[in-house]
Structures are given as C-alpha cells and as structure tokens.
C-alpha cells in the first residue's frame, strides 16, 4: 500500500516538474511548481520528515510561490523573446547536458547509492516527534550555525533597504495631521466687494 502511494506521488511529482519547464504560460508553470512542491511535501511526510514537509507547504507554497505568482502576473514577460535561439543553442546544450548526466550516473549510481549500500532506516515509534528532535538540536548542538543564519538574514535586510530606499525630495505626500488640523480660515477667504452690474454678456 505504502509503495503504491509512493509511486503515485512520485509520478505526479515527475510529471508536474516536467510541466513546469514545458508549458508555455508562465502562470501555469508556477502553478505546476506549486503542485510539485506539494507532492514533494507528501513524499517527505512518508519519510517521517513531517516538520520539513509542513515547512515546505507553509513557506514555499504559502509564501514564496504566491509571491512568485504575483511577480509573474505583474511582469508582462514575452515568452517568444525568451525562447529565441532555443533550437540553435539546443544543438550544443542538449549533448553537453546528456554527457554530464551520464557522467554523474556513472559516478553516483547504484554502485555507491544503491539499496544494498544504503539500508532502509529503522522506523520510529508512533510517539516519535521529528519536530521536537529538530528543535532539540537546533538550539543546542547547532546554536552557532543557527545564530549565523540569523546574522545572514539581518545582512540581507540591511542590503535590501540600502539598495532600494532613497529619499526623493519632490514626491507628493499627504500629511494627515495637517489635513485634519486645517481650519476654515486657512482655506477659505471671504472677499468683500461691490456688486457688479450685469453687462448683458457682451463684455469681452
């Protein structure tokens, strides 16, 4: 039963990954990527990596891909321009990619990573919590690397802000406080003047 589910999810994963790079519409490609992440999360769940699986759905599907979808929809990308020269480059690109693939299979193949080499891990009991285990080592054994990751994020924030924030002196902004505090006398001026004679509309 479990292997049936595994192969089902794997087939969906492979198919949706292929669809990501073959469909013409970028919005469809992003949606297929969401599907790929989702099935991948399901496979991870079967591997007892429930924390990672949930993080993948929450962070990647929930936040990153939605943002991606917005970007794709906002930018009007012309696919035909991007695909120009695809066939011309394919004559070189495809053989190179195939050679790299064959080389990698020759090295990282069954001989080193086959089932005989890597025995299946022992199943954990039902009350085993992957999340708890991760949390336990994250703040103890890996605290140094964890803090470093935090520093990397801080630098990313600083970099993003200094590269995008600039003061423009001519921008028009609303000052709500001033708007609320405005009084009638500031805006309306009543001018006293003598009434004018009607001129039969002939005045120029």
């Amino acid at each position: 039963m479990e292997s049936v589910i595994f192969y089902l999810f794997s087939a969906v994963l492979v198919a949706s990954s292929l669809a990501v790079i073959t469909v013409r519409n970028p919005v469809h490609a992003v949606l297929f990527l969401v599907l790929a992440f989702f099935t991948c999360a399901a496979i991870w769940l079967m591997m007892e990596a429930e924390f990672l699986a949930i993080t993948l759905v929450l962070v990647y599907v929930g936040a990153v891909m939605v943002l991606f979808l917005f970007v794709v929809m906002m930018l009007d990308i012309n696919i035909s321009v991007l695909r120009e020269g695809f066939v011309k480059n394919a004559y070189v690109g495809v053989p190179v990619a195939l050679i790299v693939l064959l080389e990698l299979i020759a090295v990282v193949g069954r001989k080193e990573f086959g089932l005989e080499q890597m025995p299946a891990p022992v199943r954990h009991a039902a009350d085993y919590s992957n999340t708890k285990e991760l949390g336990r080592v994250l703040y103890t054994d890996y605290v140094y690397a964890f803090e470093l990751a935090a520093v990397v994020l801080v630098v990313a924030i600083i970099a993003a802000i200094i590269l995008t924030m600039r003061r423009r002196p001519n921008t028009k902004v609303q000052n709500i406080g001033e708007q609320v505090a405005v009084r009638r006398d500031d805006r309306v001026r009543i001018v006293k003047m003598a009434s004018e004679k009607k001129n039969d509309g002939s005045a120029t």
Partner: protein
Amino acid sequence: MVNFEIPNFVPALPEIFVLTMACVILIFDLFIKDNDRIVTFVLAIGTLVGAMMLTISLSETGRVLTFNDMFVSDPMGNVLKVFIYLVTAVVFIYSRQYLKQRGLFKGEYFVLGLFGVLGMMVMVSAHSMLTLYMGLELLSLSLYAMVAFQRDSLSATEAAMKYFVLGALASGMLLYGMSMLYGVAGTLDIAGISAVVAQSPNNIILLLGLAFVVVGLAFKLGAVPFHMWVPDVYQGAPTPVTMYIGAAPKIAAFAMVMRLLVEGLGDLHGHWQTMLVVLAILSIVIGNVVAIAQTNLKRMLAYSTISHVGFILLGILAGTENGYSASMFYVVVYALTSMGAFGMIIVLSRAGFEADNIDDFKGLNERSPWLAAMMMILMFSMAGVPPTVGFYAKLSVLQSIVQVDLVWLAVTAVVFSVVGAFYYLRIIKTMYFDKPEDTAKIEAGMDMRIVISLNSLGMLALGIFPAALMQWCIVVM
C-alpha cells in the same frame, strides 16, 4: 529531557564583539546627523581595534574547539584574523574621503564592512562545513551589497549583478561538493571527514565531492578558468569596495582552502594537487599575459590578482608545511600590497574624477615625487623585485615547490612573472618618463598620505626584515 551544556563562549569573544558592535553601530547611526557621520567611522575602526586586542589576548590558549566542535580557535586562525582586522581598518581609512566626495559616506557602508569581517572570521574559525558555508555566505552577501552601493552608477550595478549571479553559482558548486562529502562521511565536522577520508581514500564519491569543492573554491578565489567575474567586478565596483574585495577576502579564502582541502581532505592530496596545478598554471599564464593588454588600472590589477592567486595555490599544492606557511605569507603580503595600489587610485581621484586609467598616472613624478616613489615601491613589490617583500613572498613559494620536485612548475611560474613584470614596470615608466596630462592638484588629505606612505614603506621594510612575519607563518602551521 534536553541534555545541554552551555558552550564555552570565550574563544568566540572576538566574533561576539564584532557582531554586537556592528548591530550597535547600525542603530546608533540612525540617530546621528549627516555632518557627524565621522562618529560611525571612528566606531567602526574602534571595533576592529577592539577585536584585534581580543584576538591577541586569546592567542595564548592554543587550539580550542567549542560550540559542539563547530568553531575552532587556533594560532593560524588568530594570525589571519589579526591581518583581516588590519586590512579592513586601513580600507576604511582609505574609503572615507572617496565616499565623502561622492555622497556615499553612509553608516551602512561600514556596517556591511563589519558584517563582512564577521563572515571572514567565521570562515577562518570554521570547523564544520556548515559554519564554513555560513561564513562564506555572510561575507558574500555583504560584498554584493557593497558593490551595488553606488546605485546611480550603471557599471557598479552591472558588476554587482554579475558578482551575485556567478557567486551564487559558485556557492551551488561548493554546496553540491559538500553534500557529496557529507553523503560519504555522514558528518559535517572537518575532523570527522578527515577520519573517513583516511579510511577510504579512493572512494569515488569523495573524489566527485572534491572536484566540486575545488571548483567552488576556485570560483571564490578567482582562479582561471573560473575568473570571468574578477575583472568586471574590480572595474565596476567603487574603488574602496574593490580594495576591500581584493584584500581581506583573499585571506579568508586562503583559510577556507586550508580548512577544507588540507585539514578535511588532506589524505586526498594526490588528487587535489593535480587539480590545483592546472588552476595555478592557467592563472599565472592568463593573468599575466592578459594584464599586459589593459589600459584601465583597476582591470589590470584584477588580472594581476588572478596571477597572484596562482602563486598562492602553488604554495598550497606543495602539500608541505613549508608550502602552507609560504602561501600564508604570500596571501598576507599580497593583501597589504594590493591595498596600497588601490589606495593610490583613491589618493589621485577627486570628486567627479576617477584616476583609474594608466594614463592618469602619467608624469606623477612631476606632480608629486613622494607619491610616485610610493607607487614605485608598491609596483616593485607586486612584480617581485628585491628588496621589496613581494620578492621574498615569491621566493618562498617557489622554494616550497622546488622542494617537492616540481621544478618545471617553478620555472613556468618564474618565466611568467617576468612577463608580468612588464606591466608593473610600464606604470613606473609612465610615472617617471611621460609628461603629465592631468595637472590638477592632488586633493588627498594628510591622513591618506600618511597611510599610503606607511603602507608602501611597510612593504619595503617587510622586504628587508621578512623574518618576523615569516616566523609567524611557520609557527602557526
């Protein structure tokens, strides 16, 4: 039940200090006026001085592991860190005037610089592939932002983009290699990997991982054929940033190579030696030959960096303690010398004018004989002419590879250094024998003049008395 022992924080005090100060400066900088920005600058220099004192005070303890063996404090790391502080502090001093003239004198420049220093410190002290990588990313991220700092400059933006894309590619290569090593060793710990490698030195997956790791390192070092980003980034970035990229990260990259290849994969020396031979030869040949064709001084210095990286690799590939210490000596000397050369560009630049063409140095002797003499010393040091320290650095590296019977390699390196001497000497010729085209007064302030004089004379002094620095490099190996 969590079984947790509070790690020993003492060996990491310099890192903690730099991190705290960088955050403090970041916040503090928000509350000061543009005219008082000098306070930020002084605080940044003060941080580096403080970190240096902390590192020196810890240097008595010898080799200590902490944070679950992810962090190592050892004599080699301490010496390298001291030079990283020194180089960065001098870079900051050089930067001040340049940034001010271009309206770039902002606190973030120094904050990013300090975060870069923290990244380098983490790399130098890494005892796990995880922390090594985190340090590298921390450094790279700071550098990308610093290159793009001059937002209105098209060339700086282009350079930052290229640097970012190629840097990410290199990180990917490195990570893939590390994942292979992790797959075989089952541990990220450098000592753990070393133990596994010692047991099965011919495991093909280890070799695959090694190949990717070497490619990643070569990208970061800028060795041929992974050097394409170097000239564009050096030319496009604002000169103080180029100076920073060219000097301090080279020291950290040396540490990274030592930690990964020598400490972790030392038993695969036979395999990585061949790879490094190819990288070193290509770097020395292409770096020196292509530099001849350059008219832009920053670009020329970029190609010269590539050739110097070749020399640094020569010492490492020797695989002996002599070789490692010669390489360490070389990298420190190179960082100090290149800083002076870029410093000279800053000294001659002024608002709206960048003295980064070789023609801008024409007749410098008539405009300022003292600065011309300083530049001459720096160029001699880069070319390796005695009595400057560059000669001694090249000599010790070559000696170490002759000792391991790679005479042909030494001969090739010497031949192409002679070729390389041409373009360094050409600058001296333009300074002394050509008529000046640019007759404007040199605006550099007294602090810059003092620093550049100390920098150049230091190269001369180290060349005459290299023993002390060399002794350090030998003792810590």
